[in-house]
Structure formats: structure tokens, C-alpha cells
């Protein structure tokens, strides 16, 4: 079972991520599926990360945390966020199959980022949801 995304869809995804997140100061954002495949990735040009490893670990991490949530009787956690001294990382689920990961510095407040991510997710859903019925 595979899924495909066309040029227009991917362009639109990149536009959304650029406008809502990168232009608002987010350092790096990537959209992946729960298998760890990278669908889109954007950064502000400052630093290059090993995004393949990040994607694999992020999918694993999110999966592990979701499994923990179920064990303790929660359907899911509403916030998955790791704070570092200079860089932070935030995870957001999009439908059951996709994950939006943002890496940002301390110049952006988490609350603000969550608002922007929520906006992006709403728009990305319209592109990604049709894939799930394939």
C-alpha cells in the first residue's frame, strides 16, 4: 500500500508551512508520515539537520508516547514538546497518519507557536485527508 503526492499538493504544503511557520521565525519544519517518511521539509537557511534521522526518531518517539497515553487511559496527549536550552521541538498530529514537527528557538513562545501550528494543521488536513481514503 502506497500513497502519492503531486507537484501541486506539495507546492501548496510548502507554501502553507512557509507562510505560517518559517516566516514567523520557526527554524525548521517537517511533515512526515507515521512510518518516518519525509513529505516536506523547510528551514530558514540557518542550520541543516540530519532530517532523515530526525524523521525516523520523531515518528518512533510520537508512536511511543501515543502508546504510553493509551496505557494510562488517555486517548492521546494534547501537547508533545521538548524544551532545550536553545532549541525546542514540537510535535503535532495531522489525522492519524501524519506528523508536523517544528524546531524553534526561544524567541518564539510556545503558546504562539501552537496557535500557528493549529492554523497550518487545519489547512494541511484538506490536502492530506483525501489520501487516507485511498
Amino acid at each position, binding site marked *: 500500500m502506497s500513497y*502519492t503526492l*503531486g507537484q501541486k499538493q506539495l507546492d501548496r504544503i510548502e507554501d502553507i508551512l512557509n507562510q505560517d511557520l518559517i516566516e514567523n521565525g520557526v527554524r525548521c519544519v517537517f511533515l512526515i508520515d507515521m512510518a518516518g*517518511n519525509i513529505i516536506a521539509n523547510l528551514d530558514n537557511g540557518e542550520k541543516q539537520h540530519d532530517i532523515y534521522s530526525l524523521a525516523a*526518531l520523531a515518528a*518512533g518517539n510520537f*508512536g511511543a508516547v501515543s502508546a504510553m497515553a493509551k496505557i494510562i487511559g488517555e486517548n492521546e496527549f494534547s501537547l508533545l514538546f521538548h524544551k532545550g536550552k536553545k532549541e525546542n521541538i514540537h510535535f503535532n498530529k495531522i489525522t492519524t497518519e501524519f506528523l508536523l514537527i517544528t524546531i524553534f528557538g526561544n524567541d518564539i513562545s510556545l503558546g504562539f507557536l501552537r496557535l500557528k501550528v493549529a492554523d497550518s494543521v487545519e489547512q494541511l488536513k484538506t490536502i492530506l485527508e483525501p489520501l487516507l481514503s485511498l
Partner: protein
Amino acid sequence: MAFVNLKNKEIQVKIVYYGPGRGGKTTNLEYVYKKFRKRINTEMVTVKTHGDRTLFFDFLPFDIGVINGYDVKIQLYTVPGQVKYNATRRLVLRGVDGIVFVADAMAVRREKNILSLKNLQENLANYKKSIFKIPCVLQYNKLDLQEQGIPLLSTDILEKDLNSQLKRPSFFASALKGTNVVATLKKIISMTVASIKRDLK
């Protein structure tokens, strides 16, 4: 679940090495990583315990180049083999496109191989995937122990235990020495990419 990116003309493929604990899954990846460092420019990620057992997964991504106009990116994963890490195995199996089942050819591990294969079947079913349909190659590992006089299971027994219904390609191998490691990998990549292409038609 392979992802086809029409914009970049790219296909991402996930292959998971599965099998009982200490069977040689990680060693397979480590061999590939060491041997082809110059060509595989990416790093291998390992998440291990202090006792050198896989805790979460090992991960090795690499590009195999352009096939039919598409850049094919392979992502190799191993799962932790210890029984207690079943939840993690299930996570890593998510979206898998092809499987290498690394069985431990030591005679004392016969039962563990069978249980692990059964476990694979159950975990795949969790994602509504069938072990009979997904591309799969069997590897009977630790061939090198034979010369040390350690009793290994015969081909007949291994085939009967593990492959009588699946009827998949199988290789005797030594992940430590590299015997048939690459042959196994080539076979599973070949089968998986072909299967994906068929799915896409």
C-alpha cells in the same frame, strides 16, 4: 507504506529487519554501513541499551539511485528482538514495505525463531497486513558458528519451521562476516520495489 513524491520524483521505501533477540539484525545493518560507507553517505542511527542490545531501533537510510525515472530511497530499520519490547516492535513496523526475517540458525534458538515469526505475523495483522502478502526474505544467520563446532539447525528444519507456508527466498548467512548480507538486502529491495511499482499501477 511507501511514499511517492511526484514533485521530487522520489520513492521512499521502508524495510524492517525482524527476528528473535541476538539473532543478528543489527549486525546486518552494521555490516552494510561499514562496508559501503563511501557510497552510503548517511549516518546510521542506533538506540541501544548499555548492554548493547537494541532498545528502540537501528536506522540506516540510503539512496539506491534512479529506477524508472524515480529516485529510490531505502530506509532500513531493525527492531529490538527481546520479548519485552513488543510494543516497540509494533511501532517500528508501522508503514513497513518489506521484511527481512533474521532467524538464528543455532540449534538452541529453534523455538525462539518460531515464536518470533508468529509475533511478526500478529504485529503485521495489527496494521491489517498479511505476512503472506508482504515482500519478505528469510535469512538463516550465524553460519560462521559452524566452524566453531556449535550445532546449527539444518536447512530442512529451518525451511520446515519458518518457510513451509511462506515459501519465500531464503539465505544462509553470516552477518558478522558479511556472507550473504548483501545478497539478502539486494533481494528484499528488489522484491519490495517491484511490489510497490505493481501497487501503483
